[in-house]
């Protein structure tokens, strides 16, 4: 049975915060995509997932990517993580081609992707083991990472015993534990309930302000993108291109709830308008009042 009780806990505790501030790591790295195209060959033909994609991401900045389903957002992240090479153009992280698992880039996938026969704690510890962390350190760091996402009580549970939201938080803990210079988040909060999601967004902003790693967040939520990012990159439907970049010049730290902030409302409207003109058919979905900041 899933331990629902821990879901409501505040995701940040005092001791975890202490741990975070004492952790030392290189600061964020720049990411550069120039003329990137990705083609997939399938039995039913060629799919052009991305085409002529140009984007410069400043070191230590917070970028949100938003766009309709299938526009190549996940493909983009997999490329920056070095899991996929572009068919054309170039991808650079910190000035060199990304290599999977070189410790520069951390990727929290859309699905939790936890090893089913390992406990939640072991799943996080395994990531640290692979990054070459000394054994003595692993458990402490993994424990602290779970504490940060409010999953301490679930440390000994297997992934199948976790709810969808808990599994997603465990995956997030795994990515955060490594504290990479570039952190890619692929809809990391999609399975969380609205309240937990809000506290995670606040926590993510706090972590980012503290460490200034480069963060790229892919999301479907306009309010989340506007609430968190420095820049919102609106993508076109497949083949994915940059439709518009909206700079978010709201002051930080921003409150979790931006309702009533007229500047935020204007920016959200701008993002929505960009989405709508990039893909008019998606207009209805993006105009959902639930999504308004």
């Amino acid at each position: 049975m899933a331990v629902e009780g821990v879901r409501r806990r505040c995701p940040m505790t005092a001791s975890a915060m202490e741990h975070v501030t004492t952790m030392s790591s290189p600061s964020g790295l720049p990411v550069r995509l120039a003329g990137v195209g990705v083609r997939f060959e399938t039995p039913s033909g060629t799919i052009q997932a991305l085409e002529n994609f140009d984007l410069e991401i400043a070191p230590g900045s917070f970028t949100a990517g938003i766009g309709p389903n299938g526009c190549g957002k996940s493909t983009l992240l997999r490329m920056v993580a070095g899991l996929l090479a572009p068919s054309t153009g170039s991808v650079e992280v910190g000035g060199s081609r990304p290599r999977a698992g070189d410790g520069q880039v951390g990727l929290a996938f859309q699905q939790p992707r936890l090893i089913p026969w390992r406990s939640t704690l072991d799943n996080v510890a395994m990531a640290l083991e692979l990054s070459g962390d000394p054994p003595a350190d692993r458990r402490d760091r993994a424990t602290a990472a779970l504490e940060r996402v409010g999953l301490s009580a679930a440390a000994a549970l297997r992934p199948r015993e976790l709810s969808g939201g808990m599994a997603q938080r465990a995956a997030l803990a795994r990515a955060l534990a490594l504290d990479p210079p570039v952190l890619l988040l692929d809809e990391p909060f999609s399975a969380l309930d609205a309240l937990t999601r809000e506290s995670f967004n606040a926590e993510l902003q706090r972590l980012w302000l503290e460490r200034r790693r480069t963060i790229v967040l892919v999301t479907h939520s306009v309010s989340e993108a506007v609430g968190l990012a420095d820049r919102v990159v609106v993508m076109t439907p497949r083949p994915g291109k940059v439709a518009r970049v909206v700079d978010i010049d709201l002051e930080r730290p921003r409150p979790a709830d931006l309702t009533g902030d007229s500047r935020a409302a204007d920016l959200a409207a701008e993002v929505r308008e960009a989405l709508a003109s990039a893909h008019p058919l998606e207009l209805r979905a993006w105009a959902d009042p639930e999504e308004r900041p």
Partner: protein
Amino acid sequence: MRRFGAAVVSLVVFLLAWKVVVLLGDYPDYILPAPEAVVERGIRAVQSGVLWEHTAATLIEVVLGFGLGASVAIVVGTALGKSILIERALSPYIVAAQAVPILALAPLLDIWFGGGLLARVAICALIVFFPIAIATMVGIRSTDPLLDEMLRSLGATAPQRTRLLEIPSALPVIFGGLRVGVTLAVIGAVVAEWAGARTGLGVLVLIANQGLFDTELMFVALATLAIIGLVFYGLVVLVERRLVSR
């Protein structure tokens, strides 16, 4: 002890049905002996030491043959699962070797391997090999590609991915192959003994059946083989329960 209740009841029913068939059919002893006659013959065979001598020989062949066959099968099966090229190159031979009746080949294999224990272990291992190799291959292929990608993103090397992901996710399937393989090991030992051996339960079956016309003794030997199969199968299941935690 509740879990053994059903087994005990089914054993009693089986023996009773056997007895009823013998009574109704009124068969001569050399066609179908009564269960109590077989038990009585078994006790005499144990007391004379004959049964143990043959059982010990067969046990050694089963243990060594299964151990060798399963070890090689898991290594080869892993290679087959990881490389399409290796599978394309090797699988025709593996399948063909499996399709050739081992009974026909056994006398030759016995000569090639020098006719001793080594030859019998080799024949036994050959029979065990196929189901375990195929199960391992299928198991390795069943690895979740999303988890594999996750491990690659964390910097896991190919050997690390085999150890941390592929072997553990293949284990339930590998154990399916081991369960089949361990019962085949018993058959393999008997086939090997028929190809040329002086002791072993397979030899005892031949002696009892064709030399002594002692059908009761043949049944004792067959029952012992069945018990060996059951015990080893049970051991595999025990190990499986310890290793495969789902």
